[in-house]
């Protein structure tokens, strides 16, 4: 009975202690996990504050200084420093230093450590850390910082009866394969064996600082490039303005005497100064054509000059495009027949509405299309059409001429563009007509297009103008000026 009783007591005692032991274990486990959570929370809080700095400040030096200040305040290191790789001097430069200790802050403020450059070619400890991409432990701060600064720190530590800040942890800052710089943590205690929390925190902040600095650097570079582009753009605009003004003055200077020249040639041809011989008539004919070509060239140059300076105003009226085209073809028939080319106007089957246009300028475009067709057609014919398509009037010139390649078509309406092989047919032309034509038609809210099946297969030039009264059409009396859009200039 006694033995049974003793066993029973022991059993009761086992049952009594087990819950307490279990509770102890639970408590300790909970404590441990809670402690981890608190540590992680602190890390997150620091990372959050560093992230806020990186988002609110884009200037690299200020941003890194504020980051160094946050790390120094929250992690309890005696000094935090950030050095950055400078591409201009191919060296490391200290750009941020911070300390929670007042006497260290004074030393930092007075020292010229931020002006010191460490050439990449040197074998100094910071350069070794940058190149090896590995963490470096140093127990003598003179290996890391400039000698003068280290000695000032040492002197101040002795004055304030503080242990020497000799222990330094050097961590490379990297983004992808680029070496950005170093994060340096200094303390009077040994930094060789860090707690798990410290290690995790340092890994986190290195990543964040590297990314933040990389982004800030890109932003700064972009700002610098933008400023350079703006300066270059201004210079180009000034040059362009000077060129336009020169163009205008030069054209006027040439235009007046040429007009007089042509006038007198005409008078000679008409016999105002006596009958000419056949030979003289032939010579005068050549002179007249040459003078006319020069006058056309100068007119085009003047138009461009006016367009580029925003002075080519349109005189808008309701116009019969069909009649304009018919009259123009009649005027140019002699030119076509001289080259033994057929030139025919195809009237539309239906009655065509009017368009609101500057008649002089649109006639200039039509003339340009037909004239070009005559120039670039060695044999065959040219057909001129006027049709209606939806809310637009289409003026079309088709020829059996030398054609245009796909590549040339894309550049045809650019300034000074000419189709290749033009010299083969001894064609005149400055390459300005189509460029001016495009500007004029565009200002009328229309469009121009060139099409061709290729070299030797003829071409088609089309001008589209909105019908009067439609949504796109200009209005009679409305003010319109032909200008160059920046993207086309």
């Amino acid at each position, binding site marked *: 009975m006694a033995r049974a009783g003793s066993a029973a007591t022991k059993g009761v005692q086992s049952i009594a202690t087990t819950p307490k032991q279990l509770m102890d274990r639970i408590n*300790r486990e909970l404590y441990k996990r809670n402690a981890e959570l608190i540590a992680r929370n602190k890390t997150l809080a620091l990372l959050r504050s560093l992230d806020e700095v990186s988002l609110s400040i884009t200037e690299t030096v200020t941003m890194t200084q504020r980051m160094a200040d946050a790390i120094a305040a929250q992690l309890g290191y005696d000094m935090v420093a950030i050095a950055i790789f400078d591409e201009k001097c191919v060296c490391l430069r200290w750009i941020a230093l911070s300390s929670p200790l007042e006497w260290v802050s004074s030393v930092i403020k007075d020292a010229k450590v931020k002006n010191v450059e460490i050439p990449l070619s040197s074998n100094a400890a910071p350069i070794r850390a940058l190149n090896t991409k590995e963490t470096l432990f140093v127990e003598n701060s003179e290996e890391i910082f400039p000698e003068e600064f280290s000695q000032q720190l040492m002197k101040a530590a002795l004055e304030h009866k503080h242990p020497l800040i000799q222990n330094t942890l050097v961590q490379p800052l990297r983004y992808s394969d680029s070496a950005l710089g170093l994060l340096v943590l200094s303390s009077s205690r040994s930094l060789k064996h860090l707690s798990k929390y410290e290690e995790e925190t340092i890994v986190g902040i290195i990543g964040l600082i590297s990314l933040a600095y990389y982004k800030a650097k890109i932003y700064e570079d972009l700002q610098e490039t933008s400023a350079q582009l703006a300066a270059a753009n201004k210079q180009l605009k000034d040059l362009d303005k000077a060129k336009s003004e020169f163009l205008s003055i030069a054209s006027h200077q040439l235009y007046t005497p040429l007009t007089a020249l042509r006038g007198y040639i005409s008078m000679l041809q008409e016999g105002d100064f006596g009958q000419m011989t056949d030979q003289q008539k032939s010579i005068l004919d050549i002179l007249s054509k040459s003078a006319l070509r020069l006058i056309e060239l100068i007119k085009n140059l003047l138009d461009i000059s006016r367009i580029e300076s925003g002075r080519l105003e349109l005189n808008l009226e309701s116009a019969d495009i069909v009649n304009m085209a018919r009259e123009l073809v009649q005027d140019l028939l002699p030119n076509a027949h001289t080259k033994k080319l057929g030139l025919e106007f195809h009237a539309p089957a239906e009655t065509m509405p009017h368009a609101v246009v500057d008649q002089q300028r649109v006639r200039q475009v039509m003339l340009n299309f037909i004239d070009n067709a005559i120039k670039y057609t060695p044999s065959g014919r040219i057909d001129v059409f006027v049709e209606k398509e939806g809310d637009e009037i289409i003026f079309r010139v088709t020829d059996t001429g030398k054609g245009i390649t796909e590549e040339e078509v894309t550049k045809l309406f650019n300034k000074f563009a000419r189709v290749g092989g033009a010299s083969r047919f001894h064609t005149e032309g400055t390459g300005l007509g189509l460029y001016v034509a495009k500007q004029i038609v565009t200002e009328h809210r229309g469009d121009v297009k060139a099409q061709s099946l290729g070299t030797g297969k003829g071409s088609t030039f089309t001008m589209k103008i909105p019908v009067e009264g439609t949504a796109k059409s200009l209005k009679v009396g409305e003010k319109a000026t032909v200008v160059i859009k920046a993207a086309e200039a």
Partner: protein
Amino acid sequence: MDIKNELVRKIIKEQEAIIGPLAWEQAEKVTGLRVNIATKEVTLEGDSKQVLESLVTQYEHLFGPASREVCRDAVRSLLSQVPPEEIPAILK
């Protein structure tokens, strides 16, 4: 004496972050510590090395080795300002 008070205060504050007001209640039980729970003030009296050791042991008794690590982390940055012979082994 100020740095020693600071060490004690940091340990208790760090424990408070994990276990709450219980940290102050446990500190009150340590001989050599005068604790005002209401104002959360603490003054160290007597042998500081002994008192620090007792405080850390008090927590370790309840929550095991993890709590000792917490105490060490709490004062790590301040230890360099204390003469080595005055730092208890439990905090080194």
